[in-house]
């Protein structure tokens, strides 16, 4: 039983980590609390459905196209909705309200195009999962674990070893100084959106494979991304990954040991606790002055 709960926790945690990674980068680099992060998740899932079911592409192609499509869409959203606000030096709450509008608009568009019924990406019969070390795990869940691990590793390398990645981190550290030393703000903003939404889209495709698609699926994704980011310290990338895993474990162990009616309450309770512990969230390390 314990091993099953652990498996459930790691799988949920991996998804939350992917979502939190993107959310925290957006906040760190752009100082922007992106309420449209959840809808990037939903758009990714629906694009995957479109490419796989409507167009009949193979799954890896469908996922890749969905991820690229979402990244492109969100960069366009940035150009249309956020860039103008930035040009006018709008306060951050204005950006948040704008992102809320984007989220509602995109969700309604998806409902109009695809309908409000639940859609499924699965095309074969359901089989019992594989029994490993006393727990049962399905092929999709194994895929989730592999994909998330690889992505987090690759992105950590990207952030630390590539020029653009370092630019992202520089801008997160000090946006004015980074422009002075030659970081291109426009390109950096676009990379950040593309990266964060691409990650959310991957999470969306994986979750859609597991538990089907419906237009409001991004709501809980956004909540989990926010909680996990704050638990790990908003803007702190390793913290976000830790936060995601921590949330996955807390939820599943909470359901196991406490009454299962408290499931959503656990995420919100964690949020409250970590917000009270530190003003900016759990493990944010102090920057050297």
């Amino acid at each position: 039983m314990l091993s099953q709960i652990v498996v459930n926790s790691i799988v949920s945690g991996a998804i939350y980590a992917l979502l939190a990674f993107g959310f925290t980068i957006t906040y760190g680099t752009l100082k922007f609390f992106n309420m449209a992060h959840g809808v990037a998740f939903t758009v990714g899932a629906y694009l995957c459905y479109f490419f796989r079911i409507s167009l009949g592409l193979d799954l890896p192609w469908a996922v890749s196209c969905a991820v690229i499509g979402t990244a492109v869409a969100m960069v366009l959203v940035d150009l249309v909705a956020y860039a103008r606000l930035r040009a006018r030096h709008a306060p951050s709450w204005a950006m948040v309200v704008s992102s809320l509008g984007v989220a509602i608009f995109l969700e309604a568009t998806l409902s109009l195009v695809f309908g409000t019924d639940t859609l499924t990406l699965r095309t074969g019969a359901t089989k019992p999962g594989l029994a490993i070390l006393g727990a049962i795990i399905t092929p999709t869940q194994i895929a989730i674990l592999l994909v998330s691990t690889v992505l987090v590793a690759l992105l950590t390398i990207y952030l630390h070893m590539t020029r653009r990645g370092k630019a992202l981190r520089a801008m997160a550290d000090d946006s004015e100084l980074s422009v002075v030393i030659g970081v291109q703000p426009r390109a950096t903003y676009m990379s950040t959106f593309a990266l964060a939404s691409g990650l959310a889209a991957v999470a969306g495709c994986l979750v859609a494979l597991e538990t089907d698609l419906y237009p409001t699926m991004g709501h809980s994704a956004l909540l989990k991304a926010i909680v996990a980011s704050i638990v790990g310290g908003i803007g702190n990338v390793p913290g976000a990954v830790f936060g995601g895993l921590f949330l996955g474990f807390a939820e599943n162990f909470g359901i196991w040991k406490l009454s299962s009616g408290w499931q959503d309450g656990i995420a919100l309770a964690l949020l409250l606790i970590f917000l009270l512990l530190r003003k900016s969230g759990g493990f944010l390390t102090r920057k050297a002055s």
Partner: protein
Amino acid sequence: MKFATSFAISALALLGANASASADIKIGVTLPLTGYAASYGEDARRGVELAVDQTNAAGGIKGQKIQLVIEDDAGAGKVGVAATQKLVSIDKVPVIIGGMMSSVALPASQIARSNKIVYLSTTSSHPDLTSPGGFIYRLASSTAAQSSTAVEFSVHVLKAKTAVGLFAASESGLVASKTIETGFEKQGGKWFASEKFQTGATDFRTQLAKLKAHNADILFISATHKEAAQIFRQMVELNFKPKVMGSSFWYDPTILELAGETANGVHFTVEAGEDNPEAKKLNAEFTAAFKAKFNKDPGITASYFYDAAQLAINALKNADPSGPAIDRWIAQVKSYPGVTGHISFTTIGDSIIPITVRKIENRKFIETGFTRTTK
């Protein structure tokens, strides 16, 4: 000056148009157009629209057209209350069709009753909905009726001695868990454990893992058909195969698509309305008309909203368009032939309906023949 004149003329024209619109007979409807129950709401909306369009095409009521005033209740209490208030105070409708979800039905019906407006609740199954006082009617059966049939079938036909339950943390789930747990133990069974989940949840694995550990004969589930499809799939993946008993939420063709083979062998209770030849014929006509107009099969909410609309229309044909007159007419209805079966009401507005158990096998609904009539 020119602008002011044309504005004044258009305003007068609008007022005039409004005046004639308010001479139409209005029927108020609340249903979930947004939110977790939006797909049920779309289905239901088609049901009311079909009924009204058929009547209007045949000349309307006493020569007047029926105007449907549809408001979104999002399947949530707060929104439903606001929607109902609007229908009551602004549109001043004499009858409201709604109550798909108990969280809406419970407060909205009280608002209607205190304003002497008839509230026709469709699928809400909360036992507290109906009470002495008039104006509130329920077409579907209450959870208590379904639960007792479910328990009887499990104990006497499926011969289950031990049970576990998985219930939505919603009004209907709460009532279902109470009535099923006590009912099962009263019939001599042993209840091991119950787990809950948030409405709209998609991951039930940890709850299922906990329940699997008890090794019970049967699993009672209170969930919508979408949640159930996920639950069945995850049960197959976890190799958890007890007998399964659900409720009328599952009587929707979408579950056959979404769950496929994973739903094989599950049972559920549902109102048995359609088991007489007259209702079968009505049902066939209804399904044909529905398909012709919308190119889709009707779901269970469409059938209930259609019947509710027809009841309201018949009331308006035979009585004044006022709440109390409609209330008096509906109260004396006996064996009204609806697509969900013959409708009669008890003195507190509950519908007298037999409950039957059906089974899902190979993407089809199959009769078991087990029927009980409880109030």
